[in-house]
């Protein structure tokens, strides 16, 4: 039970911690203070409590697939806010003041939504043992260990990103963010397939003999890049389409900004 609780909590915390560390690294590199993290975590935690209390009602929505639909909606919302974030961080790279006001708000929304989504499952799991004090304590200790490992990994990734040369760090952070966003898009598709809102298909391929999903590597890759051993064509389409779209938004914003700057330079006669 101790090991189970470590694994369950680690799996959920790792996803959120990764997102927080990448966003923090990017925001600090762009001169945004880290004050938003506290607010984001607190509101995400409150939302997770609210979700875990309303799960009974939510589950019954849409003929019993409310859980899938609401989770998928949250994933899509996180994806959209990440697209806005990437646009903001790429576009005003030269006058950081403009994005400075909106950036923390967008990042806080992303993190709060991610914490709510990952957190409510952990809370449901933990409260399931509330009736038995001995078991609850074991689960509490296990959850603490799992959360610590997850948070430490996040901190490690943050300092790894911060210790790189600036251009490398920006590239690595944006690259990781694109992969996380792609994973969110494919998870949303999977949930909608489970809800029977998107058509189900046979898996497009099976890579479980190379990296099994329940192996340590598989679990890490799942948290990092949304790895699935047996995705369907629709899911793979969401993954690669999601990655391509957010990359285009980032590249487009960067291009747009450069054009504007050129125009401004020409106007001022330099």
């Amino acid at each position: 039970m101790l090991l189970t609780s470590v694994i369950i909590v680690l799996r959920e915390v790792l996803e959120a911690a990764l997102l927080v560390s990448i966003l923090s690294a990017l925001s600090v590199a762009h001169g945004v203070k880290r004050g938003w993290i506290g607010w984001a975590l607190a509101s995400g935690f409150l939302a997770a409590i609210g979700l875990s209390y309303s799960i009974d009602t939510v589950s019954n929505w849409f003929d019993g697939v409310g859980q899938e639909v609401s989770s998928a909606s949250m994933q899509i919302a996180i994806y959209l806010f990440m697209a806005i974030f990437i646009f903001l961080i790429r576009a005003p790279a030269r006058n950081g003041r403009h994005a400075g006001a909106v950036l923390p708000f967008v990042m806080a929304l992303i993190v709060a939504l991610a914490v709510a989504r990952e957190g409510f499952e952990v809370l449901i799991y933990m409260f399931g043992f509330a009736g038995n004090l001995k078991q609850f304590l074991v689960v509490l200790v296990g959850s603490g260990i799992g959360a610590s490992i997850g948070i430490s990994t996040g901190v490690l990734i943050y300092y790894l990103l911060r210790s790189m040369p600036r251009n490398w760090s920006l590239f690595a952070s944006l690259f990781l963010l694109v992969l996380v966003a792609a994973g969110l898009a494919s998870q949303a598709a999977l949930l909608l397939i489970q809800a029977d809102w998107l058509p189900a298909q046979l898996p497009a391929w099976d890579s479980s003999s190379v990296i099994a999903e329940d192996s340590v590597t598989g679990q890490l890759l799942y948290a990092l890049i949304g790895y699935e051993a047996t995705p369907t064509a629709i899911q793979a389409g969401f993954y690669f389409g999601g990655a391509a779209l957010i990359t285009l938004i980032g590249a487009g914003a960067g291009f747009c900004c450069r054009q504007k700057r050129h125009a401004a330079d020409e106007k001022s006669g330099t």
Partner: protein
Amino acid sequence: MISRQRLLGCFVVLVATSGIAMPVHAGKPEFEIEIRNHLFWPAEIVIPAHTKVKLLVTNNDPTPEEFESYELNREKVIMGQRTAVVFIGPLAPGEYPFFGEFHPKTAQGKLIVE
């Protein structure tokens, strides 16, 4: 006369609604499975190949459970004393293990597709 008309109305509504509801159920075979004392009952279910099925998982325990399977790509929280709907397939013939994530040591099951 009025009561007769009402009766007729009721009959029409009944036929109409059953007509709407029937094809939906006819399209997807339903299978049921229970969770009792953190165990799946039955632990093995046989479903037809290349067919989408509706799996109804009833959690008879007072504590929550999460139906999960890497092979089926499914994951769903089921609160205590509740029934959850999980759509599965179409699948190729084979064996697809599933488990209860909150009690993985005991809650183990297998879906046999043939």
